[in-house]
């Protein structure tokens, strides 16, 4: 019997081809975007992890004032850890960009060639790939560095510069201005001897702990590597040392140690950036996928219910003849399950094709310095893309069809003869057309609810893209608008007096966990009348004001308790939030500078940061970092740029899905009225009049659905969004401008009006004899 009914399936498919095609396209699009996004993210995450393992990525690194002596090295080696020199020097290339040159590594952070090979002979150089892409350099080319020509023997990556920031304080990567390079050891020594580097050699050591020591134990060991102040010829250090009586700033131990910096891989912004970056894409993709599957299941269930209701008498008759419920259940499930299976498979294959996963990875490859990873084919994604849609369709159908087919045989057979109970609604005298539309609405209120729910689910998918857009847009605009300073200087060796024109501040970097991610928060001591932050801080060591970015990210409000952790020194600071400062450019907690100095045990004139509205004359040797408003602007723009393709894709695909869903739902509404419309035609109503009666009333339903659906879906998505961007240390300003709400509302109405001719065509095709045919 299934074989015979199978013929009906094929004919039903042909008869309703536009509907099934629309549904299929929706599944294909949905699975394409989900699979491509998530597969790209998985490829980057897995590829980065594999590359890190294959290239022996460091567990961390430390910098020393002077290189280790033999005894110190022996002491470290005895612990069983591996330490390797990663000394480097920066050179200015011919175009003014900076190349950071190191000797080729043997044990840790080994370079990997995408093209060519590693340097083997003198005069050969291996360059980082993003720098080469920006400068159009290929293997075999020659470049001029430190007074020598080098032949580019290879181009590739090293895992310690996956995100090639020049300085750890940088907020954006600029591969047109900075790249890394490796030469063999003799060439490195030669360059060092000639002394043409931009600044002195940096004594960086990378380490692998091999489970022999913890970070903390290693750091303590390194802090014992003592140094005589006289060994250092750094004038700023000497001046600061004399003035402070032997106290370096809070990042260092009070005794004079060789250690200038200790950085674990987890805290190194240059390592694992690509994988971290795509976490948001993966979360977005999976979340969108769940919504899409719910939406698809819902649309299918509406179709099936409609079909079963239409064929109720036939089903009842077949029951009466002995056909079993299970047989019909399987029959009605077959088409939606097969359709979603085929469409899901196509979507998944498209997602894994060059138009999918590889395209999605382009943004990452254009920003991060990572090898060309082979596409990761994960079983769960195949299950997600191929099995989930039909499984969801089968499950939904099972629930819906089972309920419908459970009706008594007679109830099914007599569907057309039953009396429909209608609610008694008194309508004032508002003319026949309006009255008819209202009556029609009450009669079809369940279908109206179906349209609303379908639109609402499609709006949720839309909101993922739109929220992503506004988040990026707010980061771009708010960060710049809220940054009132032109320059922010962070000191290594502060001057005795604050440079003229500068506003002193005292800052330390602390950590706070949110949704499983431990993010940086700056605790900033400022004067109440400082011109750069609207923070009227008051004295008190346990009270802070927080930036609005921080408040939104951590869900904090005035009066809440706030605990910030100093992981370097194993300390925690507890505060009460006294207020929220309108500042979206970063995660900041503000306190009065005097109280902050007391909290840190510093002198009353201590400062380590200076803000200014113009460039100050500060010797660069005193500084850790200089940040400018331009840099903030640039990093915000980069953030938006990285997300742009995701936004565009999400918005376009979700808009397409929205149109398809709205059309399909409204078409079901028209189908349900077919008998009634044909009756009107028999009465002599003209097309325009029928349109007024049956379609114009839908505009109200669509408008009401949009008016309710937009704010509700927005509120739900706002609640879900923190989980999707939990790894990103940015404020979550997801506020829609009123014009955006209005634009969205009007767009939906326009989409409806565009789809009206299609619906009208459907109405026009309903023959006047339809009502007779149904009654036979």
């Amino acid at each position: 019997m299934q074989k015979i009914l199978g013929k009906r399936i094929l004919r039903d498919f042909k008869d309703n081809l536009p509907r099934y095609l629309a549904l299929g396209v929706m599944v294909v699009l949905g699975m394409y975007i989900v699979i491509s996004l998530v597969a790209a993210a998985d490829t980057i995450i897995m590829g980065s992890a594999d590359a890190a393992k294959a290239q022996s990525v460091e567990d961390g690194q430390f910098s020393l004032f002077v290189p280790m002596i033999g005894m110190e090295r022996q002491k470290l080696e005895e612990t069983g850890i591996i330490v390797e020199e990663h000394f480097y020097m920066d050179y200015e290339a011919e175009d003014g960009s900076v190349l950071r040159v190191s000797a080729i590594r043997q044990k840790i952070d080994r370079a990997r060639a995408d093209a060519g090979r590693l340097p083997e002979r003198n005069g050969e150089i291996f360059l980082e790939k993003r720098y080469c892409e920006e400068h159009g350099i290929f293997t075999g080319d020659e470049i001029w560095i430190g007074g020598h020509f080098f032949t580019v023997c290879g181009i590739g990556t090293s895992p310690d510069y996956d995100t090639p920031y020049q300085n750890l304080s940088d907020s954006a990567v600029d591969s047109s201005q900075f790249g890394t390079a490796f030469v063999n050891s003799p060439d490195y020594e030669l360059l060092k001897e000639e002394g043409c580097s931009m600044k002195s050699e940096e004594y960086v050591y990378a380490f692998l702990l091999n489970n022999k020591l913890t970070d903390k134990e290693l750091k303590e060991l390194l802090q014992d590597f003592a140094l005589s102040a006289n060994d250092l010829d750094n004038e700023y250090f000497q001046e600061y040392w004399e003035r402070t009586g032997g106290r370096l700033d809070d990042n260092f131990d009070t005794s004079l140690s060789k250690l200038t910096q200790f950085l674990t891989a987890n805290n190194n912004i240059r390592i694992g950036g690509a994988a971290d970056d795509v976490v948001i894409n993966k979360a977005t993709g999976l979340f969108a996928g769940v919504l899409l599957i719910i939406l698809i299941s819902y649309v299918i269930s509406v179709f099936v219910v409609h079909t079963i209701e239409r064929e109720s008498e036939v089903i009842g008759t077949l029951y009466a003849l002995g056909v079993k419920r299970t047989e019909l259940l399987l029959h009605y499930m077959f088409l939606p399950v097969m359709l979603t299976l085929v469409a899901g498979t196509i979507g998944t294959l498209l997602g894994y094709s060059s138009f999918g996963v590889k395209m999605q990875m382009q943004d990452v490859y254009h920003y991060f310095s990572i090898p060309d990873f082979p596409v990761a084919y994960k079983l769960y994604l195949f299950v997600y893309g191929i099995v989930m849609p039909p499984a969801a369709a089968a499950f939904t159908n099972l629930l819906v069809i089972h309920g419908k087919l459970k009706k008594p045989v007679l109830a099914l057979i007599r569907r057309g003869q039953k009396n429909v109970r209608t609610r008694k609604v008194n309508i004032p005298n508002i003319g026949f057309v309006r009255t008819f539309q209202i009556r029609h609405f009450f009669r079809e209120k369940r279908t109206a609810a179906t349209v609303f729910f379908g639109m609402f689910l499609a709006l949720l998918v839309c909101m993922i893209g739109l929220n992503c857009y506004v988040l990026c847009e707010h980061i771009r605009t708010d960060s710049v608008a809220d940054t009132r300073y032109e320059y922010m200087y962070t000191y290594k060796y502060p001057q005795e007096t604050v440079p003229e024109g500068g506003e002193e501040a005292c800052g330390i970097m602390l950590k706070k966990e949110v949704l499983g991610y431990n993010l940086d928060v700056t605790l900033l001591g400022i004067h109440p009348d400082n011109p750069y932050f609207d923070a009227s801080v008051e004295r008190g060591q346990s009270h802070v004001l927080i930036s609005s970015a921080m408040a939104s990210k951590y869900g904090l409000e005035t009066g809440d308790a706030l605990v910030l952790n100093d992981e370097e020194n194993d300390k925690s600071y507890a505060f009460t939030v006294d207020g929220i400062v309108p500042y979206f450019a970063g995660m900041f907690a503000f306190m009065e500078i005097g109280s902050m100095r007391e909290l840190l045990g510093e002198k009353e004139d201590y400062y380590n940061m200076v803000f200014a509205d113009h460039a100050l004359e500060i010797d660069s040797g005193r500084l850790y970092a200089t940040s400018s408003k331009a840099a903030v602007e640039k990093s915000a723009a980069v953030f938006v740029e990285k997300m742009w393709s995701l936004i565009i894709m999400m918005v376009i695909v979700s808009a397409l899905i929205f149109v398809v869903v709205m059309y399909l739902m409204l078409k079901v509404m028209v189908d349900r009225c077919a008998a009634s419309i044909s009756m009107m035609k028999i009465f002599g109503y003209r097309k325009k009049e029928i349109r007024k009666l049956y379609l114009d009333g839908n505009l109200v339903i669509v408008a009401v659905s949009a008016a309710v659906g937009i704010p509700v879906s927005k509120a739900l998505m706002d609640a879900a969004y923190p989980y999707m961007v939990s790894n990103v240390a940015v404020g979550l300003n997801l506020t829609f401008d009123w014009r955006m709400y209005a634009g969205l509302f009007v767009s939906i109405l326009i989409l409806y009006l565009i789809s009206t001719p299609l619906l009208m065509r459907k109405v026009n095709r309903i023959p006047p004899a339809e009502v007779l045919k149904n009654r036979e």
Partner: protein
Amino acid sequence: MYLEVSKLKKSYGEGGSFIEVLKGIDLSVEKGNLCVIQGTSGSGKSTLLNGIGGLDQMDSGSIRVDGKEICGLGQDGLSDYRRKNLGFIFQFYHLVPNLTVKENIQVCEYLSEHPLDLLELLETLGLTEHQNKYPSQLSGGQQQRCAIARALIKNPRLLLCDEPTGALDSETSQDILVLLEKVNKKYGTTILIVTHNNSIKNMVDQVVFIKDGKIQKNYRNEQKVPAAQLEDL
């Protein structure tokens, strides 16, 4: 007796809307008989047929078909009962619109282990030339013939017809009745016809009149007239 109905009761509604449709029906039909159940609208004739067909649960009483009690069977049991024993013909044909005549019949062919020969049945019912047409391409009479073929293909022992000519003109009605008579003779099928058409009683073996939920008359028709000779249909 092939069919035995005893003290069958059925009511609908509660309180003010309570209505007792069948008030203790007793009825027997012999195997291979052609039986008509007549009555005015609302008399309970269709309810009785639905009860015999296992389409509606009865309040009390007994229905035995070929010695087997069907009152009290669950949905699955009723489904099996219908599958093995019954053929149904309704006033409205309820054919699957996007299956051809032949395919509509084949839907039920697979329900039986010993179906009738499809081609022979098509021939018997005059559907051979229409077998590849869709229901929408057929006249009402042709559609009803298709519905009869669908009901007969699984070779049911009991054929229940609810107003089988209710939607047809008199000429087509006669054709259908001739067919039912032919089926009754050829296959020995016991046939129950519910109708309010008074002429049909002349062609059957047994006539049952129902009024207000009770059997008013139940007699054997000793002067059967062939369906082809019926008048005033």
